[in-house]
């Protein structure tokens, strides 16, 4: 009787472990990257990229959204390295952040946190105002370029640089095949409106 019970216990424990194991496996597939971030970043196993939901000082957790109903709850301590903000609490809600962590998906612990820096353009990719004037005067055919206005369409309608075409940055994927040239080596110049 005792042996039988023991066997039952062993069998049920094995079963539980198998079940837990699979549960753990499906948990491991929890996405680490929010969809828009994938345009520039590859998913990494120990790096969560998403938008900041909240920070709880009481529970020492950072909540990061990586999908519609997908939030990572990541523990942190005094040793957290932060770049792009002076302290954790000064990062605003919805800001894009990346957190490198140790531990597993169930109990991640943050090692470092980086706030997405403002978009920078490499100097060799910049077009100066003089160059732009020269190209504008030449026209897109002779100048061999396509000038693209990244602002929303109503702003483009109101005022834009001559010869520019409209391709709203927020609708880029939807419209790019219609607007951008077939030749992948054509010079494309983007501009927008700075402060709005």
């Amino acid at each position, binding site marked *: 009787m005792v042996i039988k019970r023991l066997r039952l216990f062993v069998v049920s424990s094995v079963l539980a472990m198998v079940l837990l194991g699979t549960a753990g496996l499906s948990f491991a597939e929890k996405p680490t990257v929010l969809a828009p971030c994938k345009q*520039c970043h590859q998913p990494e196993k120990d790096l969560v990229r998403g938008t900041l939901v909240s920070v709880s000082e009481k529970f020492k957790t950072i909540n990061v959204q990586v999908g519609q109903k997908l939030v990572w709850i990541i523990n942190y301590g005094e040793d957290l390295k932060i770049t792009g903000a002076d302290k954790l609490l000064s990062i605003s809600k919805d*800001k894009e952040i990346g957190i490198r962590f140790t531990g597993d998906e169930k109990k991640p612990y943050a090692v470092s946190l980086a706030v997405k820096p403002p978009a920078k353009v490499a100097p060799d990719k910049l077009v100066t105002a003089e160059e732009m004037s020269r190209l504008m005067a030449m026209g897109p055919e002779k100048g061999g370029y396509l*000038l693209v206005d990244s602002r929303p369409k109503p702003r483009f309608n109101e*005022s834009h640089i*001559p010869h520019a075409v409209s391709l709203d940055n927020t609708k*880029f994927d939807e419209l790019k095949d219609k607007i951008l040239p077939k030749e992948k*080596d054509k010079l494309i110049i983007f*501009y927008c409106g700075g402060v709005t």
Partner: protein
Amino acid sequence: MSPESARRAEAAGYTKVKVFHDGLPAWKKAGNLVVSEPAALKELMDKDIAHVLIDLRDAKDAEKGFIPGAVSITSKDLSAEKDRFPGDKSAPVILYADKLDEEAFRTVRGWGYGNTSLLNGSIAAWTKNGSKAEKGKLATAISYVPKPRPGEIAIEEFKAIAEKGSPDKIILDVREADEAMNGMIRGATNIPESTIKNRLKELPKDKEIITHCATGIRAENVFEELKEAGFKTRFLNAVIQVDKDGKYEITKK
């Protein structure tokens, strides 16, 4: 926006991608040629927003078909007609002729009218866009009486709400989170323009929502969005700067 578009174009395989980072504000400020589309002119008319529309063609050509509300001043006469233009240099001035009349643009822009543009495609594009042309005599006097844009809140009223609060109004800051991080009006809520569509649920239907951004442009976009979704709303159409303590400065555009 443009650096991000450039990155996306590179991701799509384009190899010669550049960015004119100074963008339109710098381009306009330097007095360079700016064009506008018939759709924007149509919107000014539909929303009854004051503007100056000049037909630069010879009167007898213009009389065969002109854009409603246009005033006739020929390219030839333009430089001598400065006094007929409004005192308010922020007035939107739209010029059209048979061609892109760069010289006319430079004349008016040179007088200090920062919102001058040439109508892209002129009258042909206007009628192609489905709008009607008029025939007969054109007006010769410019009348420019600026009115607030629909939904615009008076600056003084906005200030009163920001200072004292209001039980039935909330201030919605629609700047991006990193801008709002540097200082927000006390009691305001931040939902960036770029995320508003997915976050309408967070806003009350029983309160009036007053939007602001940095210059009024995004605030107006969100105002339109909220109005469409059935909210009671207005927007601040002015330049506003907020510092870390929530102190702010509003300047008229």
